[in-house]
């Protein structure tokens, strides 16, 4: 199951520029050798030299390892560059005038690169225009101002760039340069604090705390430079402590970058969670990714839409506030995670979590699809029954207004004729017979019409309609209807058929001596109960019409229950949702 996060992550490992990395390693080794060779003849303090080399070593090695493991992440190359420039700046120690000049030129640049690494961690990219602006200022000061100072014959006699003897001005510019860079470092600390404050980032807490603590190194740079400008007394000690801290930082970065232990732990927990086949996949996924805002949505191909776990249609966010990671199978989307954009910093974790959840996701998607199908089915069943009911109502009305009225009018005419021909017994007999035939037809038609739809129900409500049903029952029926006025027609119709079918069954099978019918409102539902004192043991599947009744009741979202113990009567109870 491939994922499509914005960071290709480890998937690009196969194309790692191994040859380039080896080449850089060899060049750097040579560089370190050269640097060490320069220390002994120079008058540089050994502690200072060791700390500078420590920083160079720390950044280059951490950077190379990061580059190797995360070829797509720019932080590796950036760290290698930082280490290399640090190494190059040791040319400062060289007796050779040209090499010394290069070293001097790069001397301050190192500090800005370190600030850059801090700000770019963990993706290797800066976030936003402000951060780029701050670093641009830093680089211009570290390189541009530094070169200007050197041209004005600042920074010692050995450097070869001096074109004018303006060392007074050079000292001032150099002071300004260092203050600017210290400000850049302080602003960077501010940015880091602001980022931490913005919160909600699901980064590993303990590690981010450790990494943050290295921001103290940035404070140290600032202090170092300011003290340098002001010429304070504690200079060597501060410098040494700061350099030591700055040298430790890349190791923490590398560890943070490569740490898969925590991710593995959370993925392991996820796998354990998923073994229980939870109905709710979203919660364990949110836990594994440490993003409480995570939403899991499923792709429903037959509806061409996204749906949440309940099968309800949702839209994927298109604004930048939320990120979306598609989970695909055979090139088709299966699901998507809608999450905090910060999770893109951890593509590996995202990969691992989605891979672990893949099967459960497929399962969950099928369940969402099933629920959506059930909803659809449910709706269509309700519509089918509703449409059938409407059609029957229409037919009843047609019969009533058409055939029944005509037959009544016909029998009226026959009756009138009969009275007129009172004195003709033969005609009278024929007319009386014809009138009887019409009366039988009318009675039959009435039964058909009533079977189609109980007109009294729509016209006069459940209480009146049930009174007739109870009166025609084969056993004495105690009828109780407690309703506050009329209720929704589909509910009335269903309740009517529950009673009608229930009483019919009592007549056919129950051998009962009496029955009760009870209809009442029970909160947001109408409860209909038909109880008899007969032999019980009713067949709820065949013949009794209970199956059809259950369909009717369930189509309205209600339920039908039947208790029919042998020898102890039958109780049919329908609960029909009704606002």
């Amino acid at each position: 199951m491939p994922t499509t996060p914005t960071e290709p992550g480890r998937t690009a490992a196969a194309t790692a520029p191994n040859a380039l990395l080896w080449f850089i390693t060899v060049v750097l080794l040579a560089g370190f050798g050269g640097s060490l060779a320069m220390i002994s003849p120079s008058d540089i303090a050994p502690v200072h030299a060791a700390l500078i080399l420590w920083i160079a070593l720390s950044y280059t090695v951490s950077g190379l390892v990061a580059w190797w493991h995360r070829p797509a992440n720019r932080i590796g190359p950036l760290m290698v560059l930082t280490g290399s420039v640090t190494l190059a700046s040791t040319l400062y120690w060289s007796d050779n005038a040209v090499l010394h000049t290069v070293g001097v030129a790069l001397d301050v640049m190192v500090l800005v690169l370190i600030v850059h690494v801090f700000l770019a961690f963990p993706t290797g990219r800066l976030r936003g225009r402000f951060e780029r602006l701050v670093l641009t200022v830093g680089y211009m000061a570290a390189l541009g101002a530094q070169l200007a100072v050197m041209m004005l014959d600042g920074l010692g006699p050995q450097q070869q760039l001096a074109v004018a003897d303006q060392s007074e001005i050079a000292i001032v510019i150099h002071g300004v340069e260092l203050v600017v860079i210290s400000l850049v470092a302080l602003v960077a600390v501010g940015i880091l604090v602001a980022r931490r404050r913005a919160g909600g980032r699901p980064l590993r807490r303990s590690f981010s705390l450790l990494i943050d603590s290295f921001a103290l190194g940035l404070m140290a740079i600032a202090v170092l430079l300011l003290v340098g400008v002001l010429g304070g007394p504690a200079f060597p000690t501060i410098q040494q402590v700061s350099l030591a801290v700055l040298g430790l930082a890349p190791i923490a970065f590398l560890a943070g970058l490569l740490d898969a232990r925590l991710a593995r732990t959370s993925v392991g927990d996820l796998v354990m969670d998923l073994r229980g086949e939870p109905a709710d996949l979203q919660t364990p996924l949110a836990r594994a990714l440490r993003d409480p805002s995570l939403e899991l949505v499923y792709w429903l191909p037959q509806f061409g839409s996204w749906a949440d776990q309940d099968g309800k249609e949702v839209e994927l966010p298109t604004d930048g506030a939320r990120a979306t990671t598609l989970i695909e199978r055979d090139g088709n989307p299966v699901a998507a995670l809608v999450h905090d954009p910060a999770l893109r910093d951890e593509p590996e974790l995202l990969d691992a979590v989605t891979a672990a959840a893949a099967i459960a996701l497929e399962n969950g998607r099928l369940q969402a699809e099933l629920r959506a199908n059930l909803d659809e089915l449910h709706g269509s069943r309700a519509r089918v029954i509703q449409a059938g009911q409407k059609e029957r109502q229409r037919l009843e009305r047609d019969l009533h207004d058409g055939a029944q009225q005509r037959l009544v009018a016909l029998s009226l005419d026959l009756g009138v004729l009969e009275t007129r021909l009172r004195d003709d017994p033969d005609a009278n007999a024929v007319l009386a017979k014809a009138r009887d035939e019409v009366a039988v037809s009318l009675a039959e038609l009435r039964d058909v019409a009533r079977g189609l739809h109980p007109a009294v129900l729509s016209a006069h409500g459940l209480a009146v309609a049930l009174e007739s049903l109870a009166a025609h029952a084969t056993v004495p029926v105690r009828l109780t209807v407690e309703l506050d006025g009329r209720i929704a027609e589909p509910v009335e119709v269903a309740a009517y058929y529950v009673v009608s079918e229930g009483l019919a069954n009592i007549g056919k099978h129950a051998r009962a001596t009496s029955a009760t019918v009870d209809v009442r409102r029970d909160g947001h539902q109408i409860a209909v109960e038909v109880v008899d004192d007969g032999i019980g043991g009713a067949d709820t599947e065949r013949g009794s019409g209970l199956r059809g009744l259950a369909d009717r009741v369930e189509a309205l979202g209600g339920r039908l229950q039947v208790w029919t113990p042998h020898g102890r009567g039958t109780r049919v109870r329908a609960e029909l949702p009704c606002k």
Partner: protein
Amino acid sequence: MQVAIAEDSVLLREGLARLLGEAGFDVIARCRDAEELRQLLKAQRPEVVIVDIRLPPTHTDEGLQAAVEIRSAYPDVGVLVLSQYVELGLAMKLLADSAEGVGYLLKDRISDVPDFLASVRRVATGGSAVDPTIVSTLLSRRRSDDPLAQLTPREREVLELMAEGTSNQGIADRLVITLRAVEKYVSSIFTKLGLPATGSESRRVLAVLLFLRS
């Protein structure tokens, strides 16, 4: 005897009007819906109105509503309700307070002209007409301890006719017995059913119906 008709089917409306007219009634209005009937009653008071239970616009209970209204607003106007179906619940609604000057019949009953005309006259003069279907439904109802079982077949016949609103004279004519004999049966029935004796014939209709329904 003045009569008004409210019936939306033109066939039936005209048929009824002709029938009543030939029988000597003065048909003062042929209304197509309940509203026309209401307007008429503001100006004129027929002795009886004949109302179809299903009238426009909704064809549900407009006729019944109008009947109930007329009964309470104009107690001296008899109301005869006609319907394709008779419903026990509606009968009880219509007869809620009294059976005086009220009738509830299946439309089919029109074709038995002499009977129908007698019913119209009875309702017009403060009597009652209850469809035999309702009475037979009530009588056919099974009861656990049935006091009707104590009645003789003749008493049962009398009870049925009584419940339908037939007068003592009417019962005597129908069963071809003397008025004196009818009175004897009626008093015997009331005693057996434990009902208090009531003077008026329409009051006893309600008493009997309520007894049968309980």
